[in-house]
């Protein structure tokens, strides 16, 4: 298209004039290196124990609930309890080994996004249960993709997002999550990936924190493993 060549031409012409000294304002060896910058960012923890501690601390600050459970059966029992106390009539999830084994004993009707339900139906469920690609200790985030975690809407449309993860999915930092994405999907990443850090929130009215602005009001993260 001509628009492309015209604009890129203007960019090239503009860049043909060298920058004045001092405009760059940054110099020094390795200053551009994001792997080196790891040490400058918030720390994710060196050991699995430190990571879990960090993850729990940040999640608590964000008012997300984290439960560490010994096995899949315990996760299933926890969900059954949650279903009772919250009065779930219908939930939504997606099929994979982890969700299948945790949800198998749950006595609540499940809408599977693999069957591509309509938006109106998905909007009616009380909770969305998803797996994740990874958990991030550095930021207390849940890393999801559209391909691996039941699509784009499942983790944002229902009022309660429940994440089922395993302890070995806990990564130190965001950089490790991007490495994982490349490793797992190569040159063809899912069309949607997201770092979910706490429940949906807003401070647009007088800077007062309100949870559940548009997305989930609650975020519960179940971590299975010892």
């Amino acid at each position: 298209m001509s628009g492309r060549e015209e604009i890129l031409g203007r960019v090239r012409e503009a860049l043909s004039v060298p920058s004045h000294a001092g405009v760059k304002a940054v110099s020094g060896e390795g200053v551009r290196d994001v792997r080196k910058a790891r040490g400058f960012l918030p720390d994710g923890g060196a050991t699995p124990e430190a990571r879990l501690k960090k993850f729990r601390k940040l999640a608590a600050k964000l008012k997300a609930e984290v439960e560490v459970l010994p096995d899949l059966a315990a996760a299933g029992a926890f969900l059954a309890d949650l279903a009772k106390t919250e009065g779930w009539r219908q939930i939504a999830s997606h099929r994979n080994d982890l969700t299948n084994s945790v949800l198998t004993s749950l006595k609540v009707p499940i809408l599977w996004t693999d069957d591509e339900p309509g938006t109106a139906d998905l909007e009616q469920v009380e909770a969305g249960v998803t797996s994740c690609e990874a958990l991030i200790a550095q930021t207390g985030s849940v890393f999801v993709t559209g391909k691996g975690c039941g699509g784009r809407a499942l983790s944002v449309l229902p009022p309660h997002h429940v994440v089922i993860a395993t302890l070995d999915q806990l990564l130190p930092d965001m950089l490790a999550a991007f490495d994982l994405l490349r490793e797992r999907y190569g040159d063809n990443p899912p069309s949607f990936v997201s770092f979910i850090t706490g429940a949906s929130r807003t401070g647009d009215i007088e800077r007062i924190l309100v949870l559940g602005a548009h997305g989930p009001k609650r975020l519960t993260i179940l971590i299975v493993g010892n």
Partner: protein
Amino acid sequence: MTSDTPAHQFQEDSAVSTADFEHRQWMQDALHGYENTRGGTEAMFGDFEQARQTAAAIKWEAIENLDTLLGEFADKLEARGTRVFWAGNGKEAVDYILGVCKEHGAKNIIKSKCMTTEEIHLNPALEAAGMQVVESDLGEYIVQLREEPPFHFVFPAMHLKRDRISQIFEEKLGTEPSSDPEELTMIARRVMRQKYCEADIGISGANFAVADSGMISITENEGNARLTTSLPKVHIAVLGIEKVVPKLEDLSVMLQMLGTAGTGQWLTAYNSMIGGPRQPGEVDGPEEFHVVLLDNHRTKLLADPEQRDALRCIRCGACLNVCPIFKNIGGHNYGTTYQGPIGSVITPHLRGLQSYKHLSFSSSLCGACSETCPVKIDLHHHLMRNRRNAVQEKGGKMERWMFGQFAKVMTHPKRYRGSEGLMRFGAKLWLPFKGRKLDPLKAWTASRDLPAPAPKSFMKQWQAQEREQEEGKS
């Protein structure tokens, strides 16, 4: 005074808002709260200053290689079924978006926060074509209902107290009044749920354009951008060509810098990357994804070898939050899409130096903006460069003559001493008019004092004192 020019408008409006002490206090309290939160988050970093260096280096590499990186970004997107449109100016962008909307017979448009669409005045164009446009970000929705522009490009409704918000909801949505921010937020949530389901097209912005992966990255807290880009059948993203970062891994630094500098959170609730429409094997997502890349004078700023680092800006809003001018006059008076120091720096490039030079003069040059900028843009020096360029391009003849005379007086002791007498004589003539209607210095004395010259100069007083001491000794 008339408000025929942006400069006059700015002066008039600022005179009114600086006289409103209650509103000034309100803004200062809010922005002070932000500064406290941000300070705490910076302390979580291993070395915030070094992380800032890396963030600046990433964006500088992007700006210096903008042609190749933009090409790579567009190629990667197109390879996975995204339609990329290159818009030279706002009109081309608006026309393209209107075309896509009409092609789909769209009636309802849902938008997530996007300053670039404010810049090109997209909403009025869509509305004029008979479409209903709804801003889904809570702050943006509130100012949209009030039919006013965002007050701050990150916190659009920060100037409004809850009673004003309750009032506009009552007026426009017919809801019961409330003084509870949670209740008010839930009103918007209920309205918006309906809108998401009805929307034919979702329009978003982007915080970053990742070249090596062909993905846009969107940072938000509410989840409105995720819903806007997930549910409608068509998604259009509008972004300036300067949004590029070279690699996906660069986001591991940039997203945390944006969250921290912008809002004081170490990361916002949702940081999402979108690389195309729904792909084979995926269960949902839009069927069509359009990316509109906007120049609109950005290449003009890029051509400035002194100021092109301003294109590193990630629109975090940190410079507004610390600016003594912004804190006192607020965002609406700027009359620009981008307020505060960054707005004062770039608007002259985007809309004309002579019409917007006044913003660069309205600064105390304290440098707080440069110090807080997460990508180290030399903001306060750029304000000085804009001043210099404005004068070089079109300096006032009177001003030049006066400074010429001033230089002549100041560089010659005899002339200087002679001028002292002249000043005292002039002051005597002027004093009866001081602060009155006919005061020729009214522009100054209306809000400031101008004391009369001392009867004796410092030099004469010094000499007299020395003489007395000499006499005392002998």
